[in-house]
């Protein structure tokens, strides 16, 4: 067995998986609270990648950054997360909230509309050509290794910060007042308002958090793979959605697990399966179908819990 190939694939699978997991979290949180598949979510991720690029260039660009590289990277993340969080709140406010009591197909159509709106706005505003983060100039080509396992700085950064964000989210949902209100609202919205919980605010917070995570994922992807373009959210969004479904839509740990699985599956498929580098998506979506056939509610999803 070629261990060095295996470890390379594992590392890139975990990196991709971190990105997918962060996207999947937004899908699953919004689904949990509104039972809505927010198909614009992948495009929020795309906008995040662009916001990171703009932050980088406002800060002097990758070749001559006006601050130390790590500070630039932190600011790129912060800017992308806040901008995407705000975008998510606006999308909810204008595209979904007016349809809160409409038949469930209506907000779904609205979500598709927002997706096209964001893609085409990006095309109009940012152009059709690829943009480059030029991570090489910004943080160099340094790699870390443990024996055969090599990680580039962006890979390490992606995996570590994704783990950090996921731990943060888990604590927020488990321990904080807003996190508990989110759980209560997603279980029974009317009962939550009977407690005095401002359900609109809780839903807006959910969109803010989920969209901020997608924004972070966009910056991570761009730091690792370099190039961004207006259509990048489509496939990434679909994979994040796949990850959420595999993990059990509505389940936060499920989204994390699903994301890692999809990332690893994609990476191993690319390296090991026939024509994997061309057909990796075939394998990833075949995995989705297989898992769903075996476990219709996903790996960690519960088969519709009855309300008490």
């Amino acid at each position, binding site marked *: 067995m070629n261990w060095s190939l295996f470890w390379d694939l594992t590392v890139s699978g975990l990196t991709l998986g971190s990105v997918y997991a962060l996207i999947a979290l937004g899908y699953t949180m919004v689904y949990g609270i509104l039972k809505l598949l927010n198909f614009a979510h992948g495009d929020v991720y795309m906008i995040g990648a662009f916001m990171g690029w703009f932050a980088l260039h406002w800060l002097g660009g990758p070749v001559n950054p006006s601050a130390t590289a790590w500070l630039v990277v932190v600011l790129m993340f912060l800017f992308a997360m806040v901008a995407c969080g705000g975008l998510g709140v606006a999308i909810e406010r204008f595209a979904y909230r007016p349809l809160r009591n409409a038949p469930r197909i209506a907000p779904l159509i609205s979500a598709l509309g927002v997706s096209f709106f964001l893609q085409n706005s990006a095309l109009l505003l940012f152009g059709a050509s690829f943009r480059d983060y030029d991570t090489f100039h910004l943080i160099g080509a340094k790699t870390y290794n443990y024996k055969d396992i090599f990680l580039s700085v962006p890979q390490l950064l992606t995996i570590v910060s994704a783990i950090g964000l996921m731990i943060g989210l888990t604590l927020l949902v488990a321990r904080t007042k807003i996190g508990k209100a989110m*759980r*209560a609202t997603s279980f029974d919205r009317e009962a939550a308002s009977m407690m005095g919980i*401002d359900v609109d605010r809780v839903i807006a917070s959910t969109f803010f958090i989920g969209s901020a995570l997608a924004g972070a994922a966009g910056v991570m992807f761009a730091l690792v793979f370099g190039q961004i373009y207006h259509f990048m959210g489509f496939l990434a969004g679909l994979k994040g959605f796949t990850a959420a479904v595999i993990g059990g839509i509505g389940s936060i740990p499920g989204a994390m697990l699903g994301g890692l699985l999809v990332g690893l599956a994609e990476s191993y498929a690319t390296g090991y399966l026939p024509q994997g580098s061309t057909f990796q998506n075939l394998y990833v979506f075949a995995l989705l179908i297989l898992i769903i056939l075996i476990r219709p509610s996903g790996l960690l999803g519960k088969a519709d819990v*009855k309300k008490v």
Partner: protein
Amino acid sequence: MSVNGAASLLALVGIDTYYGQIHILEKLNLEVREGELVSLLGGNASGKSTTLKTILGLVQPRNGTVEFRGENVTGRTTSYRIKRGMAIVPENRRLFGPMTVLENLEMGAYLNRDGRGRKEDFERVYTLFPLLKERRNQLAGTLSGGEQQMVAMGRALMSHPKLLLMDEPSMGLAPILVERSFEIIQQVHQSGVAMLIVEQNANMALSIADRGYVLSTGRLVLEGPAGQLLEHEDLRKAYLGR
């Protein structure tokens, strides 16, 4: 103005509530005075729950006003009304099943200055329902019906309500538990909380109430002191089964 001299706490004046085009509550007038225990009776689908939802602002009346503590709260949010001192034990309890008993109680204290509920709030509820202290880390959805009823009451009391709304608290409980829960209702009432209790169990509800109202397809058909209603011919035939 009022019989026992107490001030009006809640007043519904000329309420018309619709679901879509369907007229549910018609010209409803209802009052709860401070410290009073009032029963709202009526058969299935007569609009009892809709009345409570109108009081809380979960549905908006098309006409009429809801006054609470001397203030017109008709256009106000549910949050605002709860902050002002309403609380509800909803029909079917509506606990947050996948959350612990403790977290359910915290949700009841959501609008308190310290939203997690102060230690005294928990102690007060645990004194009323000692079992909840033992079960505080259990998921609410795994409790028995009687235990869930305790959580629902405890949750509503966490916010120190001035007015407690209860929607069929006896529903689905074994007779022994019904009696026990009415004892607790009286105990809470004696601590100064005014109550509006919706019930199908009219005998039990009137036996502890000061006054009662009877709804029939969205209109009030009877009202008066509980003792009088208990003796009322029509009510006896319709609801009391004797």
